[in-house]
């Protein structure tokens, strides 16, 4: 089983590195975003934007996962893998692991870029580790939403467009854009909202194991479990056709 999963993770990471569009979206985009926001708002409140940037990059995993699954389906690769002893769990599990690896790299990139610009997060090493945990849970949510997008998309092109159904609300109501009472209601259903506000607290110097952060961790973990299960079930039922 391990040999299979490792082979699939290796293939998926190569897909990111070797496809220019994937490489840009997954690894260069977070860096560009951090630098652009950092240079635009340095000294006038970049610390307000920085926590949202961690989640921002991770949200785009929805698009790359949806494209990857629809592409593999269109090219008959899902069928071909299905003929081997690989189970759906191993295949989807490998996607989760490869995207967790990507999200860790994304966080490191954003972190380095924001440090270079002058952002100094508080919270110490444990704070950084906890921020990683939040981002990894968001990454699992993104894989699940990507699977749902792939299930309802007939082609990779359609998947790109449809993925914005999940990307846009999270971008506007769950990262760094200030919320109104109305958008706050919507935000309550978005994992990126809890991730961003938790990272804000952690990097703002709050005690890392306070009730607010722990409860947000619980909510995001629960959302991750529900979304990934939903994604797998929907993809198994409708996504393979």
């Amino acid at each position, binding site marked *: 089983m391990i040999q299979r999963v490792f082979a699939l993770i290796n293939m998926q990471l190569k897909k990111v590195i070797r496809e220019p569009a994937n490489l840009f979206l997954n690894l260069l985009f977070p860096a560009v975003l951090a630098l652009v926001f950092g240079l635009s708002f340095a000294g006038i409140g970049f610390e307000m934007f920085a926590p949202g940037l961690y989640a921002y990059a991770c949200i785009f995993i929805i698009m790359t996962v949806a494209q990857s699954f629809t592409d593999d389906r269109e090219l008959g690769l899902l069928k071909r893998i299905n*003929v081997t002893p690989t189970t759906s769990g191993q295949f989807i599990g490998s996607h989760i692991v490869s995207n967790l690896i990507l999200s860790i790299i994304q966080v490191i990139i954003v972190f380095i870029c924001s440090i270079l610009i002058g952002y100094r997060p508080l919270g110490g090493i444990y704070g950084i580790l906890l921020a990683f945990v939040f981002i990894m849970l968001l990454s699992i949510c993104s894989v699940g939403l990507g699977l749902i997008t792939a299930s309802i998309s007939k082609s990779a092109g359609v998947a790109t467009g449809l993925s914005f159904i999940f990307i846009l609300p999270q971008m506007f109501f769950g990262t760094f854009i200030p919320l109104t009472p109305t958008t706050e209601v919507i935000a309550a259903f978005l994992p990126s909202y809890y991730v961003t506000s938790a990272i804000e607290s952690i990097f703002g110097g709050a005690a890392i194991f306070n009730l607010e952060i722990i409860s947000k961790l619980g909510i995001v973990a629960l959302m991750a479990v529900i979304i990934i299960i939903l994604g797998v079930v929907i993809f198994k039922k409708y996504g393979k056709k």
Partner: protein
Amino acid sequence: MELINNEKLKSNSEEKVESYTEKAIIVKNLEKRFDEIIAVNDLNLEIRKGELFGLLGPNGAGKTTTINMLVGLLKPTKGSIIIDGLNIKNELQKIKQLIGLCPQEPSVFKFLNGRENVQLFGNLYEMDKKEMQERMDKLFEITGLAEASKRKAKGYSGGMLRQLNLIIALINDPKILYLDEPTVGMDPRARRKSWEFIGALKNQNKTIVLTTHYIEEAEVLCDRVGIIDYGELIALGSPKELMKQHQAKNLEEVFLKITGRRILEGM
């Protein structure tokens, strides 16, 4: 590998067909419905171990649906499938270790090179690294793709992609190999070369199920053929037997006689 002539292959087939006793595939009362459409209807078939069996039929006859059920991609609506003594219903994982599928459209990861593609599938079968390496080298050598094996598949020609498609299907050394239209779109020279290759596989005692539009291909390669139309098996036998039975000069004439008559009956 030197080019083979059709007659040589034909005579091999006829000698071999007598020696098969055990069954590799047993299909009983197989049916597949898609809502109201019956894609495969009450199919009964036995394919012997080491046999090269051809599944022929016009477009939409139910060939690919049948193959998809035999490899476990589709669940039958009714009926049973036994592969090498294992029931597909509850022993699919074991069956998957025994089979290889070469799909009609080359299904390869274009951003990987030839070797990486084959290695990926070898790993999915959890093959021993050394064994995989040796088998891969051999397959690339035989197919003449060794030189291009380190190039990304994105730059491969149609013929090269088909060869890679076939190598992937063979990496786990399957006991049963399904070839779905393996030579479609190939030029005559490349098709001949593939026939040679398939002929060589036959001598390794593999059971091969081949679907093809090229009747000549089936006549040259197959020990027995089954003609399927509207999801039903309408003829079964060795090419020679079918030609004799239908008083035809070649298998193509048999095919046209049988399927053409059904078209007329349906009008």
